[in-house]
């Protein structure tokens, strides 16, 4: 072996073969437009199925008819009449829930007393199906907007608290020690080290919170509202008007995609410092 050259040409022998590559995969790559393509393909499939009769009109509405219903909604202005109250409820309710959730989560993360006192309470509230509390909220806050705000706020509050205090717990302790060693004030440490460090966790908690908010929005509107996507879907459902039902569902999906997109945008803007 020792007289083999250490560099230069590869050996001219028949049994030389490349080392097999086995380092691939396990690494998410950003693939654009595939998500949209999957949805479009599914819609086209249903369209084809309903047109040829493979799928009966009773099982699924024809996507083009749903589009027509959507067009009617747009032309008559009913779209905004339903969408604006819904979006307002979602915005107000989740703003209340998320802001108190972040505040309480940060307190739990920072103060042992708050942690000891509140974590069991949050754990007790989390699994309650919030919709079961709607009658109670109607008594407390009235049949109008108040009870809907409260329901959405409570629904977004619990996941936000849990993800926020988890995120605060995970802030690099050496950064906090660094702040202390330079004599930074308590409030400076919280504002400049703890909160930015917890932001990734808080934002990913927000994704879950807002999705739950949309679910509760519809549930609340089904139980007592004249306008709103939920009321619209309920009315269509009770008449077995599948086109309108699906039009409502599509609006909800769009709302979900939109909130997720907004959070994704915020993550790219605010968390560009991450490796």
């Amino acid at each position: 072996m020792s007289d083999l050259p250490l560099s230069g040409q590869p050996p001219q022998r028949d049994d030389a073969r490349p080392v097999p590559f086995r380092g691939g995969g396990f690494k998410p790559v950003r693939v654009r437009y595939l998500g949209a393509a999957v949805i479009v393909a599914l819609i086209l499939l249903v369209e084809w199925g309903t047109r040829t009769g493979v799928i009966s009109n009773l099982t699924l509405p024809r996507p083009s008819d749903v589009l027509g219903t959507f067009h009617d909604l747009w032309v008559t202005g009913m779209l905004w009449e339903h969408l604006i109250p819904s979006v307002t409820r979602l915005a107000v309710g989740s703003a209340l829930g998320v802001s108190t959730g972040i505040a309480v989560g940060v307190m739990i993360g920072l103060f042992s007393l708050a942690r000891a006192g509140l974590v069991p309470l949050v754990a007790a509230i989390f699994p309650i199906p919030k919709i079961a509390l709607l009658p109670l909220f109607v008594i407390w806050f009235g049949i109008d907007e108040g009870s809907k705000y409260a329901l959405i706020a409570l629904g977004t509050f619990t996941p936000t608290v849990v993800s926020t205090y988890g995120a605060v717990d995970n802030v690099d302790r050496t950064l906090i020690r660094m702040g202390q060693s330079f004599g930074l004030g308590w409030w400076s440490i919280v504002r400049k080290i703890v909160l930015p460090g917890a932001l990734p966790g808080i934002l990913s908690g927000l994704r879950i919170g807002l999705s739950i908010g949309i679910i509760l929005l519809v549930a609340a509107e089904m139980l007592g509202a004249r306008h709103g996507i939920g009321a619209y879907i309920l009315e269509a459902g009770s008449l077995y008007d599948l086109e309108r039902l699906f039009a409502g569902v599509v609006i909800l999906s769009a709302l979900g995609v939109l909130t997720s997109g907004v959070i994704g945008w915020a993550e790219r803007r605010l968390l560009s410092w991450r490796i």
Partner: protein
Amino acid sequence: MDLHLDRISHRYGRVEVLSDISLTIPQGRIVCIVGPSGCGKSTLLRMIGGLERPDQGAVLQQGEVPGDCLNPLTFVFQDFALLPWRTVAGNVALVLEDHALPRAQRERIVADVLARTKLTDFRDALPKQLSGGMKQRVAIARALAVNPAVMLMDEPLSALDAQTRELLMDDLVALWTRAPFTAVYVTHNLAEAVRLGHRIVVLSRRPGRIREVVSIDTPLAERRAGDPALEAHQARLWQLMRDEAEAADMELSHV
């Protein structure tokens, strides 16, 4: 300002980590603390900096703190401890923001320390864009910004590769030669200790006791890698540490 460690002992639960440590850190000198892993040298440094409280004994400051000193006892950490969401200049500015300084003065300090650490061109870079050596230079710039009376350096070069370590050691020597600072420098690397230390304190394995204090009189600027006198010191230190390190290595961890 001098620092005195007065008979410091400490335990974590039932494990005694430091035992009866008395030491003086004179102004304008670099004191290196070496010892086998787990001997409590980092704990001792945190006590000197007031991040941890010893069970017995005390750390005493003696003499006036210079008037323009914003943070007398200032750490340089092994893992740099830079805020990843702040730029180089932002990381340095962080430690000035809690002091009532005029904006112009703050900017002057940041520009000055970045120039001294050769980072002026990188003031707007984020930590993720920097190499390990650059990150540690940012951390050193941040420490210099508060004009410390004593720098507490916790294995500042241990996370870096050998070449970067050599370069940064030269940087530290140059910084010290221009403006002598007081430092406690914890390391397990004896080559660093003999290059940078005026005094080298050898700790025994746990519980850490002072085994010996070695003084090296050669001026820092004249020390070169491969200098026979330094090599002799390093060999002697290794003799002292070898048995301790070996015994420490065989111990079961109780922490």
